[in-house]
């Protein structure tokens, strides 16, 4: 893990230590978020699969029924029969917050006459197969709405999980080791500087001491010489 490009100073060291603390805490929180999201996601996705299978089955049946209706009626008649719907569907969308992911909640209501069958046509000119087809479709429609809700939820959750997972991994395997390494590097560098200055002081002291001794010796020698010069006259 390469060391960050910073000056090895005490200020930088303090700054990095604070950042490391924040990162470790953030990493823990994000990890918790990821785990909880994952739990929610698994539930959603299981329901999604079941619902999708159900809807696909229902729609295949409805399509077959439509094909049958199209076979016995002329295309113009078929189109005319369902051209103008008796009810119109409008959708309300709310939001639910799942681990700070906004997921949609749909509730739909139909406007128009609700009583009787869903078929928007008179029965005189249409065949029974068309009734079956429309009936099959309206049965599966409730599930289709639920499928839309749950599928969008699972997509949004998947996106959020991916994002969170990347963040967790980036912190765990890149950011935090990098900072630890840099902190170590700065500490070593600072210690090294400290040792260097101690040694320098010792050296200076040594030199001063040597100089003092030298001076002292010279003085002594001088004293001995003067006393030697004066000596014989005295004795």
């Amino acid at each position, binding site marked *: 893990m390469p060391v960050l490009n910073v000056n090895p100073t005490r200020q930088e060291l303090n700054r990095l230590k604070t950042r490391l603390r924040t990162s470790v805490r953030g990493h823990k929180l994000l990890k918790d978020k990821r785990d909880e999201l994952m739990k929610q996601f698994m539930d959603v996705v299981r329901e999604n699969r079941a619902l999708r299978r159900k809807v*696909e089955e229902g729609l295949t049946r409805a399509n077959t029924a439509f094909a049958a209706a199209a076979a016995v009626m002329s295309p113009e008649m078929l189109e005319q029969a369902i051209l103008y719907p008796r009810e119109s569907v409008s959708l309300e969308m709310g939001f639910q917050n799942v681990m700070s992911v906004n997921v949609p909640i749909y509730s739909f209501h139909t406007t128009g006459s609700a009583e009787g069958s*869903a078929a928007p046509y008179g029965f005189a000119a249409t065949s029974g197969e068309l009734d079956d087809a429309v009936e099959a479709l309206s049965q599966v429609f409730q599930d289709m709405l639920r499928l839309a809700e749950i599928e969008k939820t699972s997509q949004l959750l998947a*996106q959020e999980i991916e994002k969170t997972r990347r963040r967790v991994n980036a912190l765990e395997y890149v950011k935090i080791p990098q900072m630890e390494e840099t902190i170590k590097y700065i500490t070593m560098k600072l210690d090294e500087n400290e040792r260097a200055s101690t040694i320098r002081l010792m050296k200076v002291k040594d030199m001063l001491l040597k100089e003092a001794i030298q001076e002292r010796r010279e003085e002594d020698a001088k004293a001995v010489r003067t006393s030697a010069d004066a000596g014989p006259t005295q004795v």
Partner: protein
Amino acid sequence: MSEYKIAALGDRDSVLGFRALGLDVFPVEDVEEAKAALRRLARENYAIVYLTEGCAKDMAPEIARYKDALTPAVILIPGREGSLGIGMDAVKTAVERAVGADIL
């Protein structure tokens, strides 16, 4: 809570039935038309777009664009040729994206 609309997009025979339910139906002839229609619907007030798999199989990038957006929810449905398994694949892709592997 605000009002949104639901659309069904796909080849004529597959989506016509939804008109009886009161959805807004957009029959398209080919993929290019479907792409344009999807873009238009996304700009308008549509929260759910049901798209037939027959159309969807050739416009995956267009669909992926709306995957991370809140609206519209593009939901694949089997068209008259029956289920092609693309919708199920989308669920699988979501799992792989989240977990990193298909665990179901």
